[in-house]
C-alpha cells in the first residue's frame, strides 16, 4: 500500500512561498490502477515524484509498503527506487543505446549478473511486443514503440509499483489506446500497482480503478472511476468529463444554446448510465407516460475498464410539472441526471 499523509510541498520563490501541494492525503491499494487528473500546475507531477523520492515533501509522510520514503538515507532510497518503475511523457530513453541496451540499463544499475541481464531483457521485449527491434536505436522507433521500451525498462527489476507521468500525452489516439491496453494487461498479469497522472479523462476512464481530481495543489474529489463519472460533484470534475465526451465541441454548444433559446420552458439534461443497467426503452416510455417530448442532442458510449458508460444529452419539453415527473422517473431507471442551464 502507498500512503501519503498530510503532505505539504512549498516552493520558495522571491515573491512568495508557493504551495505546490496543500494537505494531500491519499491511500493507494496494492494492485490498483490509481489515476490523478488535473490541469498543468495542479501539483500532480510533484505528487507523483514524491512516490519515488525524486521530490521531498516539506512536511507530511510518504510511505510505501510501510516504509517511510521521505526519511530514508540516500543509498537506501536508491535501492528502494529499483523496485519502483517510472515511465515518462517524452519516454526519456538514452539515444546512445539500442532498445536492448536501454532495457539492460536498470539491470546494470541493480547489479544483476551479466548472463541474467540479457535473458531478462529479452523476456521484457517479448512482454511489450517489440521482438525483432532489439538492435534498433530509439531514433528509429515510433512514439508508441518508444513508450513500449520505456515500459519494458521500467519493469526490468520486477517493481511493485509503476509510476506513469503523462505516459500517453505525446501519443496519437490509436497508439494511446494500445499503450493503455498494455498497461492494463501488465497490471493484471503482474499484479502491479499503477499510479498515473494525466490531463486526459479518457485515460482515467479506460484503465483506472480509482481517480483523484487535483486543483491548486489539493485533491478536490476522489472515488471509484465509475462513480465519479456517473455522479461528479465538483465543477472541475464535470469539466474533465465533458471534455472526454466531446460535449464541448463547438457544434454541440451552439445547438444547446439554440435549443435553450427556442424552448425556454424545456430542460437540457445529461443522462449517464452504465450499459448493463439499462435494459428497457426508457425514452419512448417516459415520453408516452408523461406527455413530454424528448429530443436527443448528442449521445455516446465509452469503454471503461470493466463496463461501458453511456451518456446522452437530451432536451425535454412539456409542462413544467410533467418535465419534473419525467426526470424523477428517469432516476428510477438508475440513470444519473445532470440538468444543464444553458439559458
Amino acid at each position: 500500500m502507498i500512503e501519503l499523509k498530510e503532505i505539504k510541498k512549498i516552493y520558495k520563490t522571491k515573491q512568495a512561498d508557493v504551495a505546490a501541494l496543500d494537505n494531500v492525503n491519499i491511500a493507494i491499494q496494492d494492485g490498483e490502477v490509481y489515476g490523478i487528473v488535473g490541469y498543468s500546475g495542479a501539483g500532480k507531477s510533484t505528487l507523483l515524484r514524491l512516490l519515488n523520492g525524486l521530490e521531498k515533501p516539506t512536511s507530511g509522510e510518504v510511505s510505501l509498503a510501510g516504509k517511510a520514503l521521505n526519511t530514508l538515507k540516500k543509498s537506501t532510497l536508491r535501492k528502494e527506487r529499483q523496485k519502483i518503475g517510472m515511465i515518462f511523457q517524452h519516454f526519456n530513453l538514452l539515444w546512445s543505446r539500442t532498445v536492448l541496451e536501454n532495457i539492460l540499463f536498470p539491470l546494470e544499475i541493480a547489479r544483476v549478473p551479466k548472463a541474467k541481464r540479457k535473458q531478462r531483457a529479452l523476456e521484457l521485449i517479448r512482454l511489450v511486443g517489440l521482438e525483432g527491434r532489439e538492435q534498433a536505436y530509439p531514433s528509429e522507433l515510433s512514439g508508441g514503440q518508444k513508450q513500449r521500451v520505456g515500459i519494458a525498462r521500467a519493469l526490468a527489476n520486477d517493481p511493485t509499483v509503476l509510476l506513469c507521468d503523462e505516459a500517453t500525452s505525446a501519443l496519437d489516439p490509436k497508439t494511446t489506446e494500445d499503450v493503455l491496453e498494455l498497461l492494463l494487461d501488465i497490471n493484471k498479469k503482474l499484479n502491479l500497482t499503477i499510479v498515473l497522472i494525466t490531463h486526459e479523462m479518457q485515460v482515467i476512464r479506460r484503465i483506472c480503478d480509482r481517480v483523484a481530481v487535483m486543483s491548486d495543489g489539493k485533491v478536490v474529489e476522489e472515488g471509484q472511476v465509475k462513480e465519479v463519472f456517473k455522479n461528479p460533484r465538483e465543477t472541475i470534475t464535470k469539466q474533465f468529463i465533458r471534455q472526454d465526451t466531446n460535449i464541448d465541441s463547438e457544434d454541440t454548444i451552439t445547438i444547446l444554446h439554440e435549443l435553450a433559446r427556442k424552448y425556454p420552458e424545456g430542460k437540457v439534461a445529461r443522462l449517464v448510465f452504465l450499459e448493463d443497467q439499462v435494459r428497457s426503452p426508457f425514452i419512448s416510455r417516459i415520453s408516452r407516460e408523461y406527455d413530454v417530448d424528448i429530443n436527443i442532442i448528442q449521445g455516446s458510449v465509452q469503454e471503461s475498464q470493466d463496463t461501458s458508460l453511456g451518456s446522452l444529452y437530451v432536451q425535454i419539453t412539456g409542462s413544467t410539472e410533467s418535465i419534473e415527473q419525467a426526470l424523477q422517473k428517469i432516476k428510477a431507471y438508475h440513470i444519473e441526471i445532470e440538468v444543464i442551464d444553458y439559458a
Partner: protein
Amino acid sequence: MRKEESFIEIIQSYTNWEEVEPAKLWTNTLDTLYMTFASLVAVLILGLILGLILYETNKREGKVAKAIYYITTLLVNVFRSIPFIILIVLLIPFTRALLDTMTGPTAGLPALILSAAPFYGRLVETSFRDVDRGVIEAAEAMGASKLEIITKVLIPESLPSLISGITVTAISLIGFSAIAGIIGAGGLGNMAYLDGFQRSRNTVTLVATVTIVAIVFVLQATGDFIVKKIDKR
C-alpha cells in the same frame, strides 16, 4: 626594378625545393604531433574534470557548491584570458624548475595544457548541460548513483559533442604549439620561423605551413567521421 618582376621573384623564392631537408621536416612534424597529442591527453582529462565540476556545482544551493563554482570559474576565466604568447613567457621559470630546461617540445607542454584545459572544460560543461534533463531524471528514478549517472548517462549521451569539442581543441593546440615553437619548443612553428623566415628560406616556411594545414585537415576529418559514426540521434 619593376614591381611585376619583384612579385615574380617573390613567388619563385617559395619554390626553391632544394632548401627543404626532408629529414628535418619529418622530425619537426613529429615534434608538433608530440606536443599536440601529449598536451591533448592531459587537456582531455583535466577538461573533463573541470567541466564536470562546473556542471555539478552550477546553480546549486549550498555554500560549498557555490564556492567551488566561483573559484573554478575564476581560474578558468583567468587562464582563458591570458594570451598564449604571454602565458608561455610567464611560465618560463616554472617550466625550467619543473623540467630543467626551457627548450624542446616537452618544455612547451605546461603552457599548452594550462591554456587549453580551461577552454575544453567550458566546452565539456556546455555538452553536459545539453544532455536531456529527462533522461537524467529517468536514471535517478531507476536508482542510479551519481557516478553511474556520469559514466552511463552524461558521458555517453554527450559523446558526439565531447568529441567535436576535443577536435576543436586539438586544432587550436596545433596553432599554440606553433607559437611555442618560435619561443624554442621546436616543431613546425620553429621550422617556419627559424629555418624559414630568419634565414630567408621562404620555401621552408611554405612547406611547414602546408604540413600544418594538412595535419589540421586530417584531424578535422577524423573528428567529423567519428561523430557521424557514433551519433544515433
